[in-house]
């Protein structure tokens, strides 16, 4: 059990968390209690913000690369929500990931304007080349492949986003170059 003191309201928050909830893949340097503590700290920072749960989940994902399984049960009492409610929010949005992700996220736009410029074949090529389906990560932990519906680069498709970098008019050769540069 973890006891956390909330300075603003001077109440103690009791967190009953089984360590079995912890993702095995969490960095070894962080103990169960440390993770719970860190998540609760983040949650407290967002608790009084209007609609603070979404910004909190963004912060958690930014910090850990994904939403650790114990996140919902840890932050729910702080937001006065049930674990199921928090879980429901996490599962609703494509961006929130429940498994560790690759170091780089490669997203291929699948929307109509990119289809008009050949993204269907780029999609298939990329899946074959990386041997990944959308939503999967490479075994070496380097790349996660995802689809995206529109990056707003619709006159120059196919468009690809790698982390926060954008690419346009991506053909197979350009995709190979992008992947090669991520690997080196």
């Amino acid at each position, binding site marked *: 059990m973890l006891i956390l003191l909330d300075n603003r309201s001077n109440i103690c928050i009791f967190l009953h968390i089984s360590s079995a909830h912890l993702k095995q893949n969490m960095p070894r340097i962080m103990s169960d209690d440390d993770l719970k503590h860190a998540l609760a700290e983040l949650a407290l920072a967002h608790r009084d913000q*209007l*609609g603070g749960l979404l910004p909190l989940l963004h912060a958690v994902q930014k910090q850990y690369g994904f939403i650790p399984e114990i996140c919902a049960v840890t932050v729910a009492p702080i937001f006065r929500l049930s674990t199921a409610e928090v879980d429901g*929010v996490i599962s*609703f949005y494509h*961006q*929130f990931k429940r498994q560790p992700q690759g170091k780089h996220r490669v997203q291929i736009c699948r929307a109509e304007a990119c*289809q008009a410029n050949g993204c269907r074949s780029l999609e298939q090529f990329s899946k074959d080349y990386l041997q990944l389906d959308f939503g999967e990560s490479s075994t070496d932990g380097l790349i996660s492949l995802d689809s995206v519906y529109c990056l707003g*680069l*619709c006159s120059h498709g196919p468009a690809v986003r790698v982390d*926060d970098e954008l690419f346009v008019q991506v053909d197979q050769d350009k995709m190979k170059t992008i992947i090669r540069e991520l690997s080196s």
Partner: protein
Amino acid sequence: MTRKIYIPADSCAIALGANDVATTLRSTLGTDFTFVRNGSRGLFWLEPLVEIDSDQGRIAYGPIRPGDIDDTFIQALRNAGEHPLCLGLTEDIPQLKCQQRLSFARLGIIDPLDIDDYIAHGGFDGLHKALSLSAQEIVDEVQTSGLRGRGGAAFPTGIKWQTVLSTEAPQKYIVCNADEGDSGTFADRLMMEGDPFCLIEGMIIAGLAVGADTGFIYLRSEYPRAATQLQKAIDIAYNKGLLGNRIAGSDQRFHLELRIGAEAYICGEETSLLRSLEGKRGMVSAKPPIPAICGLLEQPTIVNNVITLASVPFILVEGGEHYESFGLGRSRGSLAFQLAGNIQRGGLYEFAFGLSLRELVFDLAGGCRHGEARAIQIGGPLGAYLPESLWDTQLDYEAFAEIGAGIGHGGIVLFNDEVDLSQQARFAMEFCAAESCGKCTPCRIGSTRGVEVMDRIIARQSSEQHLTLLDDLCDTMELGSLCAMGSMTVIPVRSAKKHFPEDFHSEAKPHD
């Protein structure tokens, strides 16, 4: 004062190499010139577009790829002189010169984050005007302008504002819908990256108009650069006293916060967006109650698209009647059309309503980049696919409603003759299945069944029977879904089937 060289720092320009161009030019010409990273003019086929000040005005060069920068080019640029890539005066580029840039008047001209540059180009004049008016007078001005929501639904903005103004409540909110998820659209992105203060100004005016002191911009996370630009612009506006407790030295206050979505197309629907802003699942809710009466945290809330809000400063400065003098019928003012897909000269084309689709797509934007044009989808993933016989339709809301289509957010996607419309119909269903919030069964399950039916039609299995089933399914989705996601997914499906039947019928197998 050193002369200025302008190189856009817009997402599309950067993806086409603008940052490399800027680095190279800075290292070569750095001491002799001032470098401005402006927004894009929206002429994407010319990006990266490099401009330099001259006595006549700005001279443009483009598209400039890093490999184009050699001694000859540097020499030409230095003197604003001739070069094979020289386009002459920027304002004389034919596709720009003929435009009616009202809302996008400053796009590509100013440094987006230089608030003094914004002010020098008429920025915050609309706000100062608004501060001299009563709330009702501001709303009246917007009513007079005939402005309708530019996000897609085209609801009269003045009526929405009047409703919020007339509703008594302890707290009211202004929410900017910046969840521009429609394929083929990028006008919001251009505005947020290229003229973010214009949106901020529009939101402050909206706050003054209805008595709301708090605003949120709900921005999709697929736009990373718009997020950094907006956040910087908000910080600058606070420092300059244009946001906060005493706007521009008045006794009015307005606070503005940027919120980022998390990849959910449905959050562009206003009730879904509001739930997301409240930190919940983005589930759609039935209207009434409408957000103007019962919105964010159940308080009266204006939810307006980026361009709607960014059109307001112009209306305040020039007057509602002036804005209303553009356009025709019930479609007043201008719309920022976005030309996309397989298109020669793709980009932003702001015009008063009234051009024909053909004039815009072919006469101005040059038609397909490769192959022969076959279909145009207008209005995003929930918009109709139109065959050549309908390309002479006049671009206004009513004319498009008459042909069973919509202009939506003004995104126009051109397809060449390689397109298979049965695959596009399948994709419409697939997209709906992926992005439905799940509240209404016809949308949630119907879209999945739609993909299956389309798969059978594409495989030519009992085509007639499945085409009938598809019609039936479309009726169910249209009539049984709360919001546009389910009810309008049928528009691309039906239009593809109606206008391109050859892609759905041919070569039925003998045993069918």
